[in-house]
């Protein structure tokens, strides 16, 4: 499929379908984007497994860190890759050896590897590249607009408060 643009419905379905997310290249440095995203996805109710070989056995945001995808003790719905494009392919290939195979492989902003994406799609895995799940969740929920962002979403349906009951937290509305 074309990976230059994605329909909002495609991204929405992914963020609705997945519950467990492994983050390759998660950082414990609170100023790093990978920490921001780890924290945000946990707050939105996803079960997040941070991956970082140098920190295996320790914790990020209260979640145990694993060295590699094969160490994660549960089925992974989505692999989110916070590594550069050159090495992204090796993580895609590792993900494709998992049983069960993840439903989604997501590569972060600036990360794109079209050949690896083709291999994943041939295995029935949905792929998103050069996007951030925090940003996409924010666009669909309405939180992106809170920072002046142009979500591209037009709707006459009420925005939905997140199920966590937090005051300043919107959720994705099932459509």
């Amino acid at each position: 499929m074309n990976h230059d643009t994605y329909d909002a419905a495609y991204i929405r379905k992914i963020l609705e379908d997945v519950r467990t997310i492994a983050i390759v290249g998660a950082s414990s440095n609170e100023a790093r984007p990978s920490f921001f995203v780890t924290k945000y996805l946990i707050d939105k109710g996803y079960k997040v497994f941070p991956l970082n070989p140098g920190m295996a056995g320790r914790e990020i945001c209260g979640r145990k860190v694993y060295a590699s995808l094969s160490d994660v003790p549960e089925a992974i719905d989505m692999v989110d890759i916070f590594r550069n494009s050159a090495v992204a392919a090796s993580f895609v290939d590792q993900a494709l050896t998992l049983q069960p195979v993840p439903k989604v492989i997501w590569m972060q902003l600036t990360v794109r590897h079209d050949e690896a994406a083709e291999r994943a799609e041939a295995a029935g895995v949905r792929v998103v590249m050069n996007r951030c799940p925090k940003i996409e969740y924010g666009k669909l929920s309405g939180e992106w607009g809170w920072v002046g962002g142009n979500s591209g979403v037009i709707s006459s349906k009420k925005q939905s408060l997140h199920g966590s009951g937090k005051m300043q937290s919107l959720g994705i509305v099932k459509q």
Partner: protein
Amino acid sequence: MSDQQPGFDTLAIHAGAKPDPATGARATPIYQTTSFVFDDAQHAADLFALRAFGNIYTRIMNPTQAVLEEKVAALEGGTAALATASGHSAQLIICHSLMMPGDEIVCARQLYGGSINAFNHSFKSFGWNVVWADIDDISSFEKAITPKTKAIFIESIANPGGRVTDMDAIAAVAKKAHVPLIVDNTLASPYLCRPIEHGANIVVESLTKFLGGHGNSMGGIIVDGGNFDWGKNKGQFPMLSEPNASYNGVTMYETFGNIAFAITCRVLGLRDLGPAISPFNAFQILTGMETLSLRMQRHCDNALKVAEWLSKDPRVSWVSYAALPGDKDHDNQKKYAPKGAGAVFTFGLKGGYNAGVGTVSKVELLSHLANVGDTRSLIIHPASTTHSQLTPEQLEKAGAGPDVVRLSVGIEDVADIIADLDQAMS
């Protein structure tokens, strides 16, 4: 909505403005509050560290303001926007994000007089130096670029002369030098012209004018085109590309990608300099924006009729309105603002300075005041008011010589506008 791309008029009404999540209110509520309660200490810490989306304090963001920001970003085709107290404060925040003491900005001479003043005087006290160029000589922009240049600043349709700038040509100069092109789109509004489609990286506007449209609320906006690589040259834009000490080492461009400029303007510029828009003003401007297309087309249609009438009047020596065939900017207008040349233009009175002062003194329907982009028709004599700080040479370059009268043609019945001008010029 379906995946069909919504049209401009649909965006003007709906972009950013979903029903309120707490109450279902269909119109955007006025969140007239200074501050927002945190869920818990961790939530507060996440907001202050930029880790979570959310509201802290209305000096930095506000939900009413946020709807306005998303709407303008959508209409301009940008990735994000930041609303401010006025157009001038928007310019200040843009320069604060881009420039360090000793840096330079290349500006078109054909700018609003208030902007010329700001660049010539106030901004100098920050150590930001302006180098002037001329839209009638594109090479003057190229010649003005130095290693210290941090941006090029132009107006799409220039105030007061109604000049239409060749944006594609100036965007090429900016791209070659790898500096952002900032376009003030106040007089065109996104209905007539969308500068990002012509290579602009940052759009700035006074919302006080056509976007609000009713002459009742001040506001300004910065739109991030999301199309500039802030990290290409190390050290060129340190506020965007270096770890920021006031946010524990967060790097804006790395963290916020194609909205990094808008975020930098908000969390470093607006946070520290403070010119926040009031929620009530944001609401008023939002209400105005819903009818932007209807008003703007009527402004243009009326302005063309007034310009045609003036150009045939023996008391008038010249009319500078780009929609008139034969105007030196007519080709640019057809290219950059094909739906119309806007409401603001100038004309010359054969009677010179005294005739100008006499005309603005005698109007009865038109209002003699220093604004543009109101529903009402407005008139001013720039040489004795908005541009009175400029030297005679600057007045000529800015299109504001002693015989010049500026109009902002409103959306009244055009026959009444012409009748009032006719009696005032007598």
